[in-house]
């Protein structure tokens, strides 16, 4: 019932509904896209080099005569896997650390938070570049495509875990003295149970908003890394990478750059709208509850 009312609130707002629709479409493209591509995304079609958008090639073909629509569609999966997976890992680790740190307090909390301060004093892209640059220096060019993806995935988890942990920690810190938590403690509940059953539910709304926000930033970050040439490597259909390749051949095949660029923008703005809407829906619900109480 409660979830239901939040979803309804969210969809009642046109901007949030648009955001939700875009994200849903993106997820569908990621799941089914690779099976639906009209052409092989990495295969040159020699009879149609650099053709503009047409009924056969919706987004045209690029400088290597690959079908751009197929590449954009195929790119959705790696974008979702990396951004979604990285966000998920960051949320899991961040929640665990934030709960324990906020509930226990003391020196553990102090040490963890100072460490996170240090991590967060590096802007996200800079930290990501430092990590990826070092990984590249250490493992060289011999790394497989999967290894590269794994690197980006790892970097996202490292960059976003402290941010999530801080959000959860502040909620945990706020509720740990409340009567219901105290009651659970006096009942002799064990720590994991208190954390999961009593504290976590209080942090869920903030966590949901944070996860949506991290997800949109993750897509942003991955495409920036791809564009700079330090993320996913060619010939993989990564959106940022496609923009970079397209830019070099802009005068001949502008569509090869615009298609992925617009796609990135739409997905990031969509995820942003969804996060904004979620935040507002949750705030309105709290206001409503205060009124009812």
């Amino acid at each position, binding site marked *: 019932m409660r979830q239901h009312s939040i979803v309804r609130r969210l969809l009642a707002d046109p901007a949030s509904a648009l955001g939700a629709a875009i994200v849903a479409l993106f997820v569908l493209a990621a799941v089914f896209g690779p099976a639906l591509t009209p052409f092989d995304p990495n295969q040159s079609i020699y009879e149609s080099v650099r053709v503009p958008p047409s009924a056969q090639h919706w987004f045209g073909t690029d400088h290597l005569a690959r079908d751009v629509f197929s590449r954009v569609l195929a790119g959705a999966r790696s974008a979702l896997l990396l951004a979604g997976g990285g966000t998920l890992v960051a949320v899991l680790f961040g929640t665990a650390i934030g709960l324990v740190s906020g509930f226990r307090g003391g020196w553990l909390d102090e040490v963890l938070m*100072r*460490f996170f*301060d*240090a*991590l967060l*004093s*590096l*802007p*996200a*892209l*800079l930290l990501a*570049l*430092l*990590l*990826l*640059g*070092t*990984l*590249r*220096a*250490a493992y*060289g060019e011999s790394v497989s495509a999967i290894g590269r993806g794994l690197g980006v995935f790892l970097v996202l988890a490292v960059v976003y875990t402290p941010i999530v942990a801080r959000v959860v920690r502040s909620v945990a810190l706020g509720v740990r003295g409340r009567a219901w938590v105290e009651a659970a403690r006096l009942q002799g509940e064990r720590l994991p149970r208190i954390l999961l059953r009593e504290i976590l539910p209080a942090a869920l709304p903030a966590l949901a908003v944070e996860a949506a926000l991290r997800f*949109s930033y993750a897509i*942003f970050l991955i*495409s*920036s890394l791809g*564009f*700079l*040439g*330090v993320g996913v490597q060619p010939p993989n259909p990564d959106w*940022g990478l496609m*923009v*970079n390749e397209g*830019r070099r051949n802009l005068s001949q095949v502008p569509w090869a*750059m615009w298609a992925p*660029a617009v796609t*990135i*923008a739409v997905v*990031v*703005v969509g995820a*942003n*709208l969804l996060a*904004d809407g979620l935040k507002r829906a949750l705030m309105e619900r709290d206001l409503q509850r205060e009124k009812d109480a």
Partner: protein
Amino acid sequence: MFAYLLRRLGFLLLTVVLTSLLVFLIAQVLPGDVCRVILGREAGAARLAECRADLGLDEPAAVRYLTWLADFLRGDWGESYATGEPIREWVLGRVRMSIMLAGVAFVVAVPLAVGLGALAGLLHGKWPDTLISIGSLAVVGLPEFVTAIVLIQFAAFRFPWLPASSAIPVGTPFREALPALILPALTATLVLLAYIARLTRAGVVEELRQNYVRTAELKSLPRWAVLLRHVLPNALLPTITVIAISTGWLVSGLVVIENVFNYPGLGRLLVFAIDRRDLPTLQAIVMVTVVAFALANLAADLLYAALNPRIRVGE
């Protein structure tokens, strides 16, 4: 106020030292054997041993960290693995170029963003707010390289005299560099503008919900007096912090923007260092940025304290 200053300064030092430890761990300990990185996988045992002795890799990591930190503080940043150049001069030359670019963007973006954000906040729910909010959301959502490319295309069409590439020599004086600065600075301005305006708006809207606003309205002060005399001073104070945080945002943005325009700043050097596996240069660039970011935050904190009576007078 003095105690506050000391506390902030101590906190700044602690953060920078901790971050330097982190940077050292990532760049020097994580990759394992740095000499293998420099010499490649086929290097002979003798050359490896010589290189290790040269770089002091046989020492324990703690000693190496302290040596590196001491050298860094003394201004000895070592030599590039890629070109053999002294890193300090190299990096500092680029720092100047990046500051030039960031400075132009800041000077244009900050007043405009605070003005637009405050306007949107005060009129929240009305059409100017909707317009500003949607516009800034769209720009925040666009990766910098997309914004940059759109601008390049537009400029090539409307202002063909503007250079699309900003590959000027390092050390070009500001006046001569100006034409090359326009497009990259405009990109950075747009990104900053949207980011700061959004947060300023949120601050103003939050402030409008406070009880004192209702009190002022209930004693039937005119609307403009409530907004200008009561809401704005309170709402705009936190934007100082917002602007400081946005320097972090700008750093990330500049890396991308400089690479799109081939502008010879710190961000361009960073990607070069990664491409050439030049770890000491990478390390130095990150440290310089960390210090700059920390200083921006400190400056904002002090300004905030100086303007906020609750902190200025002290507890």
